[in-house]
């Protein structure tokens, strides 16, 4: 296969579980011992040692180093996970965030400096989104959604209109309905139009006095800009409902168009997407919520207040929904996002969105001759292919995703959004050079060709990875979730 030319291997050691290496007193760490032993007065402390592996420092370091080498990160190659905005994570952000490691939240003096910075960040986010105020504490996108939906709920409650329904387009991310459910709303699924857009005309049919709001994603998960959004907003507002925007896809439009100007009342951002902070293999992220003036009174506690250049947390917001986090969210992630904004500046923000969309459209132009593009309208930062054509040869999206691994890529997002059969959702981001886009296009082309000629071989990928396809059904059936269950 052609990928042999550019893909090589290296001997990697497959690690056993660390409990397999444990042996009494192998660990020779010296932990700090500044104090002398004394009587613990009534504290019940069994003599047994806590049950964690007893291994040497060398083994721990080798274990996690070896494991890391079985992982794919952005620095290895393109990671075109649609909806996830896997862009380059600048190292300066990590460096700066590490400087705050030893600041305790009770250290008022040090915290003043940090709060000043994150307050500055919230101003920039509001400016980029055209919103009036924000809270930075939600720890991820879904947490932001939940916070936002609670704000809507509270606003309606205070208004004396406890509506119970939230409308959600069929292209929405799973967290949207789930967040509504947690907040005690009932959700109603709205079909998109044939062109993949939400239609004011369709929406109209769903509006009634129980509709608290609509959760829209713009551009939506097909990468399409919702061009009726202003009409939709007006229609909602007339109905006394709120327009919520899932800002996970802001990378397509930042600096280009502003949700606030579209009529959005409330929205969340994913800093770990748009603002270049790392995904950390699953988190921590950060999901600030931004609101228009009318919703400010309901933002969570605390807010940030300042007098004479001293910044501190404020607790006086009577109608707040309350606290959503035990502290103030993922502070280090916030500082990384601010560092990212400092790096880019206004011009860089716009440039990022522009190149994100150009890179995506380049790939779309390169791939659409070989793959079915179910929604042929204009797209921005991502686009969604289907496996219709390859499916005819019994080659599925899953097959193609796994084959991409053997070419040194992380696969795109697959089987989402649900409106596309065997969806392949591709978001290259602005930080890919043309050469890497082209390497991807050629890999996809080779896969498309293989799907026609040697389709059986595609059922066997990946072949260069630490394991072949993992049996997820076996895992769910056997449920071995700890080494004790093994």
């Amino acid at each position, binding site marked *: 296969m052609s990928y042999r030319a550019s893909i090589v291997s290296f001997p990697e050691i497959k690690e056993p579980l660390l409990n397999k290496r444990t042996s009494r007193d192998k660990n020779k760490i010296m932990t700090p011992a500044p104090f002398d032993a004394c009587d613990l007065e009534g504290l019940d402390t069994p003599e047994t040692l806590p049950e964690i592996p007893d291994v040497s*420092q060398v083994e721990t370091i080798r274990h996690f180093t070896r494991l890391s080498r079985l992982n794919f990160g952005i620095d290895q190659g393109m990671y075109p996970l649609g909806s996830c905005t896997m862009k380059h994570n600048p190292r300066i952000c990590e460096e700066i965030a590490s400087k705050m490691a030893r600041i305790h939240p009770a250290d008022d003096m040090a915290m003043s400096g940090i709060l000043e910075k994150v307050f500055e960040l919230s101003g920039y986010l509001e400016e980029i989104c055209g919103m009036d105020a924000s809270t930075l504490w939600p720890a991820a996108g879904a947490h932001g959604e939940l916070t936002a939906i609670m704000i809507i709920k509270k606003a309606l409650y205070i208004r004396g209109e406890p509506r119970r329904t939230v409308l959600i387009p069929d292209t929405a991310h799973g967290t949207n309905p789930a967040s509504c459910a947690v*907040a005690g709303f009932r959700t109603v699924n709205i079909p998109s139009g044939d062109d993949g857009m939400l239609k004011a005309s369709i929406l109209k049919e769903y509006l009634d006095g129980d509709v608290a709001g609509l959760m829209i994603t713009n551009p939506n998960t097909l990468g399409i800009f919702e061009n009726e959004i202003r009409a939709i907003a007006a229609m909602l507002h007339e109905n006394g409902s709120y327009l919520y925007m899932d800002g996970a896809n802001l990378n397509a439009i930042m600096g280009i168009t502003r949700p606030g100007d579209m009529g959005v009342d409330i929205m969340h951002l994913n800093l770990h997407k748009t603002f270049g902070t790392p995904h950390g293999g699953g988190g921590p992220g950060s999901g600030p919520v931004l609101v228009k003036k009318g919703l400010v009174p309901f933002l969570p*506690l605390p807010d940030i207040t300042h007098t004479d250049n001293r910044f501190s947390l404020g607790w006086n917001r009577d109608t707040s929904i309350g606290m959503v986090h035990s502290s103030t969210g993922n502070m280090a992630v916030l500082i990384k996002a601010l560092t990212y904004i400092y790096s880019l500046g206004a011009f860089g923000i716009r440039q990022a969105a522009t190149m994100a969309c150009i890179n995506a459209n380049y790939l779309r132009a390169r791939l659409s001759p070989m793959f079915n593009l179910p929604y042929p*309208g204009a797209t921005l930062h991502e686009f969604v292919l289907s496996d219709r054509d390859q499916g005819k040869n019994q080659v599925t999206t899953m097959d193609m995703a796994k084959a991409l691994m053997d070419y040194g890529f992380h696969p795109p997002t697959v089987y989402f959004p649900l409106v596309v059969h065997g969806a392949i959702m591709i978001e290259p981001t602005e930080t890919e050079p043309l050469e890497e886009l082209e390497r991807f296009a050629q890999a996809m082309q080779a896969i498309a060709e293989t799907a026609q000629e040697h389709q059986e071989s595609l059922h066997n990928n990946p072949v260069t990875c*630490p*394991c072949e396809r*993992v049996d997820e059904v076996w895992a769910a059936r056997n*449920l071995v979730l700890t080494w004790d269950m093994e």
Partner: protein
Amino acid sequence: MSFTCETRASLETLLNTIGIDKKEDVFSSIPEDLLFKGKLNIPEPMDEEKIRRKMDFPVSGTIFAGGGIYRHHIPSAVDALTARQEFFTAYTPYQPEISQGTLQSIFEYQSMMADLTGMHASNASMYDGATALAEAALMAIRKKHVKKVFVSRATNPSYRAVLQTYLASHVDVAIIEIPFDPKTGRTDMNTLNETIDKDSAVFIQNPNFFGICEPMKEVSETARNAGMWGIVVNEAISLGILEKPGAFGPDIVLGEAQSFGNPVSAGGPLLGFMCVKKNLLRAMPGRVVGLSRDKNNTQSFCLTLATREQHIRREKATSNICSNQGLCALRAAVYLNLIGPQGLRDTALQCAFGARYLRDQLMDKGINTVFSGPFFHEFVIRMDTKKRKDLIKKGIVPGVDIQNVYPEIPDGLLVNVTEMNTKKECACLIEHL
């Protein structure tokens, strides 16, 4: 500085291939009147050196503050390992074949958390201890249809606040605070005996927010009558020295594990954890990694129980959580292996020794602890705001001010000592009192 890669030449190729004339045309699907024509009010791009100068954060030298977020020794190797790009730049391990590193380490994290708490299983992490508590209560409502959620007033006040927020939509569920004994600082279980039934969930924090260890045997005798009961751990290091919470028979043990290898970092990221008994496995929120195999029977790992989650179940999911605190869990896993069983115990012991050392010094100065119950590494004294602020100006943070959250403890200050403090620091605090 921009992180894009285009050049004049490549841009031409890009635009030609797309079939547009100029960059801006890529936005032609956006209605003209929505295009932002202004200039964002954001500073000019900065070079790294300028950012370094701008982002310099002085830290107080001497800190005795905990209150749910604890300063502990972090071996240098924790940073070195988790800074590997393979770990920190990766996404959620949905594609197991190229994510075995993340998956196996989370599986190990789950295993260690389950072992440490004495429970059957753990999820892959929660946002923080507070949301873990809130989600546990939602689980009790969903799974056991409880109508009352009892929570000790000696539970971290911000946990209770978040619980309140999350349960706001459940108008038919009451949150009931269990009072604490103003002498011992322990939760007053007596008031509970009558009211607890299968319609209630009970959550007790141990050590509680005042640092006091609860009489867990007694607690469990009452709590086990509830539909679901849980133990909240807001200082994971205590697991190095105390009886495993699982030994008292709770349905769930949850809390905060920031202390395991994660810096205090101005308050976050934190690391919520949730461990359950087998029968609650499928009701848990959040991601879970399971052991699996490939078709050659090679041991491998993957996310499992996905059918509980939002991306499959949408509005019927057990929770809305998607991104969690993965890297923090990895840090915890690395930390626990680096520190080992003896190290973890010794660390916990040092905390306890240090707290007693400072307590004695304070007593010599005539400052007494407010509560008499046995404490781990934290205790409440009284100090007025002015004094506290004076100390902070001198670079000494004497504790966490709790008088606003506990008006019944005027001038209450929660003082914490860990293995990061020294006798010299204690002397320094005493001297400046």
